[in-house]
């Protein structure tokens, strides 16, 4: 499998990175270099193998459903680029 410029543009859009046109051209080559190389995995017979997502060997630990933290509005907003009235501010989404 390999990517073309249209696919690179689609991936960039999915990743929310505004990649300029000329850079998209370069990325076609760079990404295909990596994808060609990882295609080596096709040699491996993984027919009956279960995927491994975590090596912890234990499930997710549980705790009682209690509030143990919170009310830290100032801390949460301490690094916000733009804030107003205790909210995050973003460009207008709905007209």
């Amino acid at each position, binding site marked *: 499998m390999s990517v073309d410029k249209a696919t690179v543009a689609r991936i960039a859009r999915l990743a929310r990175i505004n990649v300029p046109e000329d850079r998209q051209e370069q*990325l076609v080559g760079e990404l295909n*270099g990596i994808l060609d190389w*990882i295609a080596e*995995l096709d040699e491996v017979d993984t027919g009956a193998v*279960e995927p*491994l997502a975590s*090596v912890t060997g234990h499930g997710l630990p549980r705790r009682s459903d209690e509030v143990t933290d919170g009310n830290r509005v100032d801390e949460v907003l301490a690094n916000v680029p733009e804030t107003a009235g205790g909210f995050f501010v973003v*460009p207008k989404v709905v007209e």
Partner: protein
Amino acid sequence: MADLLSLSAVEARAALDAGEVSAPELTGAYLTAIEETGALNNYVAVTADKAMEMAEASQVRIKADEAGLIEGIPVGVKDLFCTAGVASTACSKILEGFTPTYESTVTGNLWREGGVMLGKINCDEFAMGSANETSAFGPAVNPWQAADGADLVPGGSSGGSASAVAARSALLATGTDTGGSIRQPAAFCGVVGMKPTYGRCSRWGIVAFASSLDQAGPFSRTVADNALMMQAMASHDLKDSTSADTPLPDLMAALDKGVKGMKIGVPSEYVMDGMDSEVVALWEKGQAWLRDAGAELVEISLPHTKYALPAYYIIAPAEASSNLARYDGVRYGLRVEADSLDDMYGETRAAGFGDEVQRRIMIGTYVLSAGYYDAYYLKAQKVRRLIKQDFDTAYETVDAILTPATPTAAFPVGRKVDDPVTNFLNDVFTVPANLAGLPGMAVPAGLNADGLPLGLQILGRPFDEATLYSIGRVIEDAAAFDAVPSRRAGGAS
């Protein structure tokens, strides 16, 4: 004390307790060392005032006989760890100006045990790289120099940490290791680096790269110092659901256990094309040292080794693309204004992420996208299980595994490579341990013909760091590695 910088952490602890040196004196010596070696660019921020305050507080606790495990010991912190009130950027433009209001669990543990924070240390952007060249602060440099005087990379991603410990501008330093980011730079800089078992150190408050692979660990100049720091940083943490509730054995006690009667595996698949012959020779020497010390060396097979790197370069970018979605210009860090929300996201991320990070996010996005998920991501996860099974099988017969740490010694800064894959090959010996969640240690074991350090890697069973420290100590003693880099603090040149 004539030369404070030459003391190991264990020696410095004894000297502090005996009153031969004070914590502020020791920290002062390291702050001077940082200035002296500034050209190595291994610190991105020096917190001198905070360091002196912490050292004064340490001195009070030492006097009161309340010293922690690393009381008064100056520590450098990879900029991937969030430190309360101190800018933490992951060496990325996108986190410019981010000052956490909280402390990572690992650094919190270190301060609780009396560690003194010297500052934040250079690394690859979001820990993505093997040469410390993707940092937004520019490359950190290896204190070891090429024969022609050229600057060498310290390795990566924890390149600044390894560089600082080797250059004597930190006595200990934290690192993180997702595919070799502690062990490879340790080998390149001639210091000891440990990636503990996945779950040993809490990931809470560490900027996430690939969450199922990331582990924090210590850098030091000696194996004993490494064990000491490991004891101070590991903990079970309810704030990290993957943190292990497995007690850490007494690692200091493991140091002198020796290797008599141990079975140590030598994987035949770790002989690879493009490996320095000197690396192979050192590996054989390491086997001889362990045999002489009473271990039995056993040839083993890890048949899926060659597939570890390609599997890693699917899994790690996939997890990264998800983790790095949070950098959106809304909650912290850089924001590039635009008319629409989508363009604000897109412009912010285009300006804030460097080329390597963008490339990995895009690979990750692609392998997780509809139509490709099974072919790439699931396939890689299946291969990951096979790699783990290789190790499980090996550990039925051996107690640990000995390999080279890296295929080559450190290479020049700015080395031109045509494709990104060439750089990935640095991690060929280290990546399998991350995929399998195993502990791994790099120990300096010799110099190559150019006078550059080479390291050996020891891999262990899950949660058996103690055995790695026993073996590491034997290698350290046999290698008697006492070479020092030319560009170190307090050095002649």
